[in-house]
Structure formats: structure tokens, C-alpha cells
């Protein structure tokens, strides 16, 4: 069965510091992987996605993620965090049935 694990429920970083949010997935074949961001009271906005090809993918707002098949991971990174990045981040996997499975999310707090 497909599943997504985001081991960090909360992460706090200082503005300007680097960020890495962890995501591990379980899926039998090559998955379609996504990172979404959700600000309070808002829906989910796509940051980036991986379908195939280059395992390092670039997204919006300066985010990137690296697909590592051997580790079943798709970690999200940003070299320098801005206060506006404070939000909740969701990793998702989608299989052939077009069903998205989401992790429980990581809430990011940014200190000024």
C-alpha cells in the first residue's frame, strides 16, 4: 500500500538559515511525488513535483527537492528561509490510480 511519512511534525528555523523537510514514501513502482504548501486558512499550493528524469527538481519560491530511490525519500530544501515561508508543508505520492496520498505535514516556524 502507498504511504507517506513526514517524521517532523514541527520545525523551527531562523530567518536566513537553511531548511530541509524530510519525506519518505512507500510505493511499489516509481512514484509521482509532490510537495504542497498550505498557509493558514488556505488550500494547498504546489511547490514542486517529480515524475521522472533529473532527480533534483526545482520549484517555486526557491525550493528544491531530491528524489532518492535507494532511500525512498523526497526531501524538500531551501538554502535561505524567509519569514513568509512559515506554513505547513505536505509531501504526497500519487500512483497509477491518480489517488494522492499525503503525509501528516510539517509545520514550519520561522524566527526573525
Amino acid at each position, binding site marked *: 500500500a502507498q504511504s507517506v511519512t513526514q517524521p517532523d511534525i514541527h520545525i523551527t528555523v531562523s530567518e536566513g538559515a537553511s531548511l530541509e523537510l524530510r519525506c519518505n514514501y512507500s510505493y511499489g513502482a516509481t512514484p509521482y511525488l509532490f510537495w504542497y504548501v498550505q498557509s493558514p486558512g488556505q*488550500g494547498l499550493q*504546489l511547490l514542486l513535483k517529480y515524475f521522472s528524469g533529473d532527480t533534483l527538481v526545482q520549484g517555486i519560491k526557491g525550493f528544491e527537492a531530491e528524489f532518492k530511490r535507494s532511500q525512498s525519500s523526497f526531501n524538500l530544501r531551501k538554502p535561505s528561509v524567509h519569514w513568509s515561508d512559515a506554513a505547513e508543508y505536505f509531501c504526497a505520492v500519487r500512483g497509477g490510480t491518480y489517488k*494522492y496520498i499525503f503525509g501528516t505535514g510539517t509545520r514550519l516556524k520561522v524566527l526573525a
Partner: protein
Amino acid sequence: EAGVVQSPRYKIIEKKQPVAFWCNPISGHNTLYWYLQNLGQGPELLIRYENEEAVDDSQLPKDRFSAERLKGVDSTLKIQPAELGDSAVYLCASSPGDSRDTEAFFGQGTRLTVV
């Protein structure tokens, strides 16, 4: 281009009352999803439509929840009767459906509070 539109944004009802949520997907998107998001959790699929056909409703509590997507465009999700535990955010999403290399686009959600 307009995104996925949901209404209402917020709804407060008393338990045992009925409630309905409406979703207008992005024009041309064949696939429509309803997701449930409990506080502090990730979204969980309730139902997926391909055009007007519900192709995955295995996680929809059919004793009280129902959904429809007449004409394969707008969709309505209904709860009758609502229970306290139904308090959550209900998200609608859509995707083109004719290509695997795309993503789901989400609406802003409807926050339901059952008192």
C-alpha cells in the same frame, strides 16, 4: 484563469443538521477530488470523479455522506446528518485527467464546524 472555487468558505451548523459544499473545478479538468482534512493532519481522499463517474469512493462514509457531479463539471458534497466529528476542512481539487504528468489543483476549502 480561475482556480478551483469552493463555497462556502466557512459553515457552522448544529449536529444532526444537513450541510452541503459546492465545488467548481478548473475549466476543462475531467478529474475532481474531494478531500477531508482534520486538524493537524494531511488531506484524506473521500471521493474521486472522472467526468461524472465516481471512480473511487471507497473512503466515503456512505451512511451520511453523498456526492454528485452532474454533467461532469460542478460537484456537491453533502453530509446528512452531521456529527460533531465531521468538523474539519473539506478540500476540492481538480486535474486535467488526460495526462499523467500533471498535478492536482486545490481550492481554498470549506471549514465546517459542527456544534
